[in-house]
């Protein structure tokens, strides 16, 4: 449970930590869009340098980022295999019966891998340096225009930030229940898939009951502190773009210009 890196926030004082969460969300979003465009070696090189540079700015050990890639390893391997085997073209490098490995297939697979890895790294930079509730806050601010379409943006953001706040608590609880049941002889890691799935049931029931009780308690606690609805409230944390955010946007623009120059000129 402890080694899930995606979505984990590590407090710090780096420039990236201090950026407005909206800047980081927009930056990550733009970067992902550009990566869907990238299809030459040089574009991946430019993107890799940009990611590398940002990673250095976060002042976090590289190991954190490598750990962040681990959970997607199998997904990555699976996609690469698919790309290698099912991209046609010539020249053919290897031949096993009806399966052909072609040079375009290998190149395609490598591109997909780079794309995946770079996107995950960029998203890890965002989640590693931004508290989850700030992300929720930023999403609320960015999605504000949807309010005119009657989308309950404020409610959704509040729900998201409360949900995120309870994640560590529920993780702890899962671990406790697992330990309690292991001490009664339950095993979660042996037997076939059916047996393992069955072992999950006595884990889920107390977990759900506990979560429900928490939800009821929390609703009471919110109500007695004057919560009426998500709309009629002021805000303690007001987001404000600062100098470093403009610098970040300038770097993003510069990166995009270089990216497209490399894409179309080289």
């Amino acid at each position, binding site marked *: 449970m402890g080694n899930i890196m995606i979505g984990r926030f590590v407090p710090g004082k780096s420039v990236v930590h201090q950026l407005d969460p909206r800047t980081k969300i927009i930056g990550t979003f733009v970067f992902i869009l550009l990566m869907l465009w990238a299809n030459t070696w040089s574009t991946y090189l430019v993107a890799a340098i940009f990611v590398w540079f940002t990673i250095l700015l976060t002042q976090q050990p590289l190991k954190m980022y490598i750990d962040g890639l681990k959970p997607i390893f199998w997904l990555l391997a699976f996609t690469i295999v698919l790309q290698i085997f099912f991209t046609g073209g010539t020249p053919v490098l290897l031949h096993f019966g009806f399966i052909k490995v072609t040079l375009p297939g290998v190149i395609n697979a490598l591109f997909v891998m780079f794309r995946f890895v770079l996107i995950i790294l960029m998203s890890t930079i965002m989640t590693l340096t931004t508290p989850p509730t700030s992300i929720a806050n930023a999403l609320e601010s960015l999605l504000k225009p949807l309010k005119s379409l009657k989308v309950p943006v404020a409610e959704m953001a509040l729900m998201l930030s409360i949900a995120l706040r309870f994640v560590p608590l529920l993780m702890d609880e899962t671990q406790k229940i697992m330990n309690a049941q292991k001490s009664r002889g339950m095993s979660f890691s042996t037997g076939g898939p059916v047996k393992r799935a069955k072992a999950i049931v006595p884990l889920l029931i107390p977990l759900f009951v506990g979560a429900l009780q928490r939800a009821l*308690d929390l609703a*009471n*606690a919110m109500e007695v*502190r*004057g919560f009426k609805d998500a709309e009629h409230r*002021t805000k*303690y944390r007001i987001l404000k773009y600062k100098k470093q955010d403009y610098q970040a946007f300038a770097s993003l623009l510069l990166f995009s210009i270089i990216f497209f120059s490399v894409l179309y000129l080289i």
Partner: protein
Amino acid sequence: MENAIKINNLTYQYQNQTTLFQDFNLTIDPGQWVALVGHNGSGKSTLAKLIMGLLTPTQGGITVFNQVLSESTVNDVRSQIGMVFQNPDNQFVGATVADDVAFGLENNEIDTKLMPKMIAKTLEIVGMSEYQDREPHTLSGGQKQRVALASVLALQPKIIILDEATAMLDPEGRQAVMATLTQLKEQFGDALTLVTITHDMDEAALADRVVVINDGQLILDGTPAQVFSEADVLHHNGLGLPFSGEVVAHLNQKPQKYLNESELISWLSTSNK
């Protein structure tokens, strides 16, 4: 004189259950510190939720500072009462200590510019100033409960109800919360009415008045000295005595009336001469 809380002929029953409260009456004066005690399931939390308007009485009325609790007054009434619950984790709404205190201020549409000062002030009262930016999972239970108390204080309530706020804490956390309460009572005096729900008799002994309920019935009501003299009645209702009372129960030669810890110590040192 106006009452802080007046409960008048209250009847309440949960759906599909037998009647819990039947014609229940209780008045609490402004500035009083009342300990509400009773064993598990005796109806203490239900009573607190009724006062907060989280549950609606089947019959009878609740008045808070001359305001009759109803659907149209519930928000006004709530703004005068703060409540701290038992489980420290299930009432921490914000991502950090400061955000949690801010939650109530945001709900009451306090100007953003005023918040930092108000937050700093209330955190100082409960002695949690240095923890302002900490996340809840890095705090002890006692610290979380003090933050909960600060969150309530930030809204400047006239009444604070604590529903077994120390029940899930270790002795150290319990001590810290009770010390904070004692200090609050000294600081605010008659401007603050306290209702502490507990089944820890040592905590109840700190109050001005102890009210014992069982199955929605008022069993005893008086000063700690009066209530703790009724050891048999308490025992019959599943409750014990404070530490000093338990010591006396095992003495051969007993004092005439209930003594608290310091009184007992001086009695012991004089009577045995």
